């Protein structure tokens, strides 16, 4: 828990005042309500602080220091970058969600296609890579699944994702064993001939 913060304070005269109260306030501040507090000419009517039109205009346009302006320009550049980057991130996020939906419906081919789209934008995301590896495996694209798993090798990952990947790895190993056994059988038969 943090303490109440104190930034961003706008300091102004104590309360809203109008009419006679305004004159009273000006007198309290030793300001002549009939003279502009800044230049001494005739002030605008209906304001608490007696200022002429020119002085109020000038003071309301209080100069912004150059370093704040420079910082603001940098901020605008960052803002434009973020604004341009947002649709790309958004499309990747939506593709990932579509992939999850399809995976839930056991439509693994569609899931893999959508995860691939998200992967193109975020190739370093362990989450996307895991989902892509699992869905390509379930879609029967074992080669693609093995390639993704190779990329994930040695990475520190969430235990849930690791557990899912281990199931896929076991499945792939079983397939490789089957293929090897079948090839051995074939070559053994060939040897008898």
């Amino acid at each position, binding site marked *: *828990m*943090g*303490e*109440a*913060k*104190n*930034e*961003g*304070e*706008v*300091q*102004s*005269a*104590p*309360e*809203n*005042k*109008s009419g006679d109260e*305004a004159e009273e*306030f000006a007198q309290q501040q030793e300001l002549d309500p009939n003279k502009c507090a800044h230049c001494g000419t005739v002030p605008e009517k*209906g*304001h*608490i*602080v007696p*200022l002429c039109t020119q*002085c*109020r*205009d000038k*003071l*309301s*346009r*209080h100069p*912004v220091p150059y370093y*704040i302006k420079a*910082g*603001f320009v940098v*901020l605008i550049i*960052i*803002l434009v970058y*973020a604004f341009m980057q*947002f649709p*790309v*991130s*958004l*499309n*990747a*996020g*939506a593709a*990932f*969600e*579509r992939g*999850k*939906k399809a995976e839930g419906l056991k439509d693994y081919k569609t899931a893999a296609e959508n995860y691939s789209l*998200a992967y193109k934008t*975020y190739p*370093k*995301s*362990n*989450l*996307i890579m895991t989902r892509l590896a699992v869905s390509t495996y379930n879609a029967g694209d074992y080669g693609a699944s093995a390639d993704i798993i190779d990329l994930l090798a040695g990475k520190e990952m969430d235990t849930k994702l690791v557990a899912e990947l281990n199931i896929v790895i076991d499945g792939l190993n079983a397939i490789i064993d089957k293929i090897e056994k079948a090839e051995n059988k074939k070559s053994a038969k060939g040897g008898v001939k």
Partner: protein
Amino acid sequence: MIPGWIISVLTFPGVIVHELAHQLFCRFTRVAVFEVCYFRFANPVGYVLHENTNAPGKNLLIGIGPFIINSVLGAVIAMPAMISVIKFEAGSYFEYFLLWLGISIAMHAFPSTGDAANIWAAITAKETPLALKFVGIPVVGLIYLGAIGSVMWLDLIYGIAISGAVPFFLIKSMA
């Protein structure tokens, strides 16, 4: 307990944008500004010293200016980074920077309790038109609540929520 000034130092861009927003709204409403401090290592960390005005609309706009500017700027800057860092845990250093910058700005959207009291006084003043009160009181009440709630990290929660709510809602609706 983390002292408020440490939070303000860590999120200083938000303080500067907050003060700049007050200043800009003074300019828009033609209210004389006498002094502006964008950031300092003292209490308060930033302030805008301007003339008092008897127009409740102007007081209201100057008070809620930072709420509008900080919320929009912070959210837009943090949105793409929110997806890569939070959703996919695949953020680059620059995206972490964007996230810090955006949340820092957005979390300073809430006024200080002093500002909030000024805004509340403006909206509930006798001279304030009824229509403005009708629209303004719920909004100002919420802002006031946020200002008080900064003790319970409500400002940080708001910063994260506003940066995350839009992209995650859009992602869900696009999927």
